[in-house]
């Protein structure tokens, strides 16, 4: 190799240029470069390639890769899965240049531990040998000191030697253990330095006052503290309180019979009992009174106004005699109530007629202020005030129905179908004799104004209508245009007509022309005429006798007549109004008790008791059985009528 170098160097230095030569000359300076510099002529070997300059300048790139040049590049292996030879893409490029097997073993492996143990043993025996040697040296040093002493020394040395030997054996025994048990001492010589202050012990220090005296305050609050549960009791107590206040009145009502009647030659008196009035009804007149057919202490009062100019609202109040200070039921309406009636079978139904022509039905079971049913302009209400309403018997379909009469000349039958009022015009009143000839021979009839009516107790279809002209028409429900009969009753409007409760032929009428007339419906002229010196507001037959009736006048008086006692005069003539100028508007007899209620135009209702004279029953003749019952009453009246008729036929 060294031999080849110089010629190569020379060729290189020729081929590469001056730089190389400088380097070479640099290196060669130390080794006698002058000699070499002289022989710098290029020497070309004979087998050197002949290249052109272009070829010579051609650059060849050499790349260093990590590939193993000896590794095969296209290994193919047989794949049994596919059954073909497959080219393996990745070939292992690892080339091992040098490998040598060493003799190092890891410490933790079995062989390593075994060796370590063996080494320790060796080290331990060497140490013990050293210790023995040092001890023996010490002993040897001690021996010469004690050897001169005595022969015991020899034994001592023996003993000592034995001891030393024992020690050695002991140590030999101990040392193999020691290296094992020797602790790993801290190589860094770390010592902890810490200090702690003295901790003061904790102590609880408290102080407590004496607690203030305690009292328990408790109450129970119930969710069900419902005051509404006392309603019933409250009602009862209210009545009790009233009874206490009006105790004397209640006693009178029940027990008082005017003893003075015996001395009063047939005349009777009316004892004022309770007075019913309510603030709400202060300015309203009593326009209707009606006793409840079932509960004899309950009555209804209708309030309104008779004054055409002053029309206000209406009130329907229901009072019980047991509580005169406050009504049981209150219903208010926009228009004045002119009339009312309570149904016999359903005593909780009250039908009222209003001043504006409407009719309404109130249900006492549902005491809110709204009527259950009401007519309207659509459903055929009257054009004028409704003066009278009356319940009729249920029709064939068991629907409730009632009749109403009004100044617009219509008598209307209302039927309650499911939930509405249906009306049927029964009769249109025509004022007879007032037919005027209109154009083309038409006869125009002026409409009569009905002011009162009453239905016969037994003959269902028969009823009487009183009009404003003073005529009374006897009508039938079945004939709508013709009247059965006409009576020229009064000179002014007929205020009330009433059939006798016992006698089927007799009825009574009253009017503002100061008269009360009693008729037999078969005869065109009245049986009895009474002039009462003042416009008569209302008449009513007594329920207990066919010959007793009461009339009230606008001068505040109540007149009670008993035809069997006195045919020409009232047996009682008593001012009963609360105040002198109050006009009495209505009167009603209680069906059971001997009392009447009287209403005036100031909204007061007064309850009066009839004295015994007014309730006279026919005297029992000794030995004869007292006959009671309607037949007797009828007979009584018949007798009277016959007398009158005889008189008439005579004249």
């Amino acid at each position, binding site marked *: 190799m060294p031999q080849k170098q110089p010629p190569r160097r020379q060729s290189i230095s020729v081929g590469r240029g001056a730089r190389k030569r400088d380097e070479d000359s640099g290196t060669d300076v130390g080794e006698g470069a002058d000699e070499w510099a002289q022989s710098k002529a290029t020497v070309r070997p004979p087998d050197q390639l002949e290249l052109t300059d272009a070829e010579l300048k051609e650059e060849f790139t050499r790349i260093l890769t990590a590939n193993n040049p000896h590794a095969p590049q296209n290994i193919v292996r047989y794949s049994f899965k596919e059954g073909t030879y497959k080219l393996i893409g990745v070939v292992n490029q690892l080339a091992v240049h040098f490998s040598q097997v060493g003799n190092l073993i890891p410490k933790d492996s079995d062989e390593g531990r075994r060796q370590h143990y063996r080494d320790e043993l060796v080290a331990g025996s060497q140490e013990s040998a050293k210790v023995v040697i040092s001890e023996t040296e010490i002993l040897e040093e001690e021996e010469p000191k004690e050897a001169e002493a005595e022969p015991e020394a020899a034994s001592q040395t023996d003993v000592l030697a034995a001891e030393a030997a024992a020690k050695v054996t002991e140590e030999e025994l101990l040392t193999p253990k020691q290296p094992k048990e020797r602790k790993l001492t801290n190589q860094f010589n770390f010592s902890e330095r810490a200090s702690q202050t003295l901790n003061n012990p904790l102590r609880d220090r408290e102080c407590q006052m004496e607690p203030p005296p305690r009292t328990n305050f408790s109450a129970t609050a119930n969710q069900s*503290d419902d005051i509404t549960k006392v309603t019933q009791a409250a009602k009862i107590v209210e009545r009790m309180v009233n009874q206490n206040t009006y105790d004397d009145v209640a006693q009178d009502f029940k027990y008082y019979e005017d003893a003075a009647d015996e001395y009063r030659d047939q005349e009777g008196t009316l004892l004022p009992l309770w007075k019913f009035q309510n603030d709400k009804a202060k300015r309203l007149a009593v326009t209707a009174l009606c006793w409840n057919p079932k509960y004899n202490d309950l009555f209804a009062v209708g309030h309104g106004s008779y004054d055409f100019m002053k029309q206000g609202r209406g009130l329907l109040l229901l009072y019980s005699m047991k509580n005169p200070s406050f009504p049981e039921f209150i219903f208010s309406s926009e228009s004045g109530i002119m009339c009312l009636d309570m149904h016999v079978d*359903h005593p909780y139904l009250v039908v009222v007629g209003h001043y504006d022509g409407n009719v309404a039905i109130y249900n006492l079971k549902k005491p809110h202020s709204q009527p259950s049913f009401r007519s309207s302009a659509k459903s055929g209400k009257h054009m004028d005030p409704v003066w009278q309403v009356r319940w009729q018997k249920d029709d064939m379909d068991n629907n409730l129905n009632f009749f109403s009469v009004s100044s617009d000349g219509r008598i209307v039958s209302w039927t309650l179908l499911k939930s509405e009022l249906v009306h049927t015009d029964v009769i249109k009143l025509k004022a007879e004799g007032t037919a005027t000839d209109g154009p083309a021979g038409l006869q125009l009839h002026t409409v009569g104004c009905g002011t009162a009516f009453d239905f016969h107790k037994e003959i269902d279809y028969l009823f009487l209508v009183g009009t404003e002209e003073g005529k009374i028409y006897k009508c039938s429900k079945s004939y709508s245009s013709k009247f059965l009969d006409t009576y020229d009753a009064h000179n002014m409007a007929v205020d009330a007509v009433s059939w006798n409760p016992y006698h089927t032929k007799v009825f009574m009428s009253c009017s503002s022309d100061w008269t009360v007339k009693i008729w037999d419906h078969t005869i065109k002229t009245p049986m009895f005429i009474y002039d009462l010196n003042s416009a008569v507001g209302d008449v009513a037959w007594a329920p207990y006798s066919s010959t007793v009736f009461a009339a009230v006048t606008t001068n505040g008086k109540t007149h009670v007549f008993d035809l069997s006692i006195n045919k020409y005069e009232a047996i009682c003539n008593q001012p009963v109004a609360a105040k002198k100028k109050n006009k009495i508007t209505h009167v009603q007899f209680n069906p059971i008790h001997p009392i009447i209620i009287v209403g005036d135009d100031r909204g007061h209702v007064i309850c009066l008791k009839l004295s015994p004279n007014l309730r006279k029953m026919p005297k029992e003749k000794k030995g004869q059985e007292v006959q009671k019952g309607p037949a007797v009453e009828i007979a009584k009246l018949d007798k009277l009528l016959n007398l009158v008729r005889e008189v008439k036929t005579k004249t």
Partner: protein
Amino acid sequence: MTEWTNEPGLCPLRSSGPRPAGLGAQAEVEETLKRIQSHKGVIGTMVVNAEGIPIRTTLDNSTTVQYAGLLHQLTVKARSTVRDIDPQNDLTFLRIRSKKHEIMVAPDKEYLLIVIQNPCE
């Protein structure tokens, strides 16, 4: 028509029949109690519950408590007396007339309404 056919003969004016619940009934009772209190001669009214604790009163506390306690016991005794004699019977109300005034007690299911009135005023 169905609503009319409900008990055609009976008018539940007196029974503790369907009263409108709620504010209507409340106001009604309050008004009734007010009327009772303002009636002539009434000295005081009070409502006592089933345990003898007064719920509402128009008298002063000590009087109320006294009346409530005593009358409650008396009512219980009276009721038990009535029922012992006839188990179907029950106490409707209790009136104690004394020289000075009259005490009226109306027992209800849960409450007791007591009114003291001086009727001779």
